[in-house]
């Protein structure tokens, strides 16, 4: 299946992948509306980390593992892997126990504390390629076929 990969040396720490992700998962799918006018702004499902005052940076996100630790730790069954291989979370079913946060070695599950729900990458089901990849101006994010974990 296709997964999102990061070329660290090409990342300039602009956080546009996060902007793209938040916009895609907002109600309006418009960045200005999503950031300024929508009451509930989604959490970004990718996380840009910066070090040495911005000299090093990279965007980290879900690996959609073949044997997902988050799925195995999930106590409510909210996390399932679909036939296409996408590891998705059913927000209705999630009880906010953070077992997935405990288990994911990629640090790729976020806690939405307002909604008390876990939050993770869904590979943008409505798009050809994920919003973070399309938003990256430096092509530091690559969406390509990858083998299993």
């Amino acid at each position: 299946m296709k997964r999102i990969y990061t070329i660290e040396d090409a990342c300039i720490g602009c956080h546009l992948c996060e902007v793209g992700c938040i916009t895609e998962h907002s109600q309006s799918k418009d960045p200005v509306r999503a950031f300024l006018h929508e009451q509930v702004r989604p959490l970004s499902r990718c996380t840009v980390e910066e070090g040495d005052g911005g000299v090093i940076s990279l965007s980290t996100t879900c690996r959609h593992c073949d044997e997902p630790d988050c799925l195995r730790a999930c106590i409510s069954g909210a996390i399932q892997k679909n036939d296409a291989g996408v590891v998705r979370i059913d927000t209705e079913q999630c009880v906010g126990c953070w077992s997935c946060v405990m288990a994911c070695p990629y640090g790729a599950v976020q806690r939405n504390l307002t909604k008390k729900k876990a939050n993770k990458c869904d590979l943008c089901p409505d798009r050809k390629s994920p919003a973070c990849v399309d938003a990256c101006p430096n092509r530091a994010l690559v969406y390509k076929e990858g083998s299993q974990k």
Partner: protein
Amino acid sequence: MNYVIIGNSVAAVGAIRGIRGVDEKGNITVISRERHIAYGRPLISYLLGGLITEKRMAYLPEEFYEKNRVNLLLDAEVVGVDSARKQVKLAAGDSIGFDKLLVATGGDPFVPPIEGLAGKERIFTFTTWDDAEKLKAIAADVERVVVIGGGLIGLKAAEGLHLLGKKITIVELADRILSAAFDRPAGRVVAKKMKANGIDVITEDTVVRIEGDGARISGVTLKSGDYIPCDTVVAAIGVRPAAGFLKGSKVDVNRGIVVNNSMETSVKGIYAAGDVAEASDFFSGQKNPMPIWPDAYIQGDVAGTAMAGGEKAYVGGLAMNSIELFKVSTISMGITNPVEPKEYEIVTYQDLENYQYRKIVLQDNRLVGAVLVGQVDRAGIFSGLIREKVDVTPFKEHLLAPDFGFIHLTKEIRNTLFAPYGKVA
């Protein structure tokens, strides 16, 4: 090939997927003594407290059993296993044959023989959906509850009952609650929060007598001599592997069913997984029962794969718990409270006023344990470092940082995990 699985919780689900990953054709029969399809067992406290409805108890997508062609026998108890004839005997009298058998029956709550307990009506255990239903059914009539045991089950029962507005006292024999997962400071942080919410936590004491006339409970007397009035008691001392029905089967049972690294028991063709099994520990390799949800899934997967002729080795159980009590998040994993602290390097950060605590346990520059209270985001990075036995020397000073992340690790590790040419690429 006929696969029979006794038990229908997370280990069974891992096993069904494990079998189907190798063998699409074989017959799978799942036998459960409970009347429900697989449910999120840890959710029973949420159900009791009214946080979720029954509809959300289902652990699996509706089509799971059909899609995996599982023959499901609910409300059926296995009373014996004949290893020689390869049959399981049901309480109803009939027998079912198997080629490969998985025992994934979990644990039975242990109720100690306390004076005055016999004949009392409102003594409950709290490990099944039906337990939660029973408590819920009489809840309107309950005022004060004593919970015996301050482990995970006791605390979750207390939380559920607290949500229903009941007055709760927890009595714990150890010097702190959650002694298996927490050290003293973490136990204290959570106990403080519970007390702030009106729950009494009594430690280093235990219930020696249940008082009351006939079936009615009026209170409990503690070893210290204290008397606590109550009308209901929840016994949450612990669970014991539910393996009693294996008597005479030649399957080796110690504290749990002893298994090798394919989850096979002492009898060829019979496997065990989950809380009922005694598998090897991640660090010591010694056999231990490990009642941990993700571990039960992994053991089930390993067992199912092996039963179907595939190969997957169990790397050892790693204890981990994510517990939120009264809005304080806690995550603990691995060795959190070493018996011989001198052999370990332990670093901590405390801000008890704000319910924040971090503890990192290292051995030979490898991370072996962590406790996080309050800020628990990305805790899984630690579990990855433990599992992969990563040398933390280059980034040791960052381990306690609240924003600890991949940026603190080496570029080599980052590339392995995320680059297009890394291990996942």
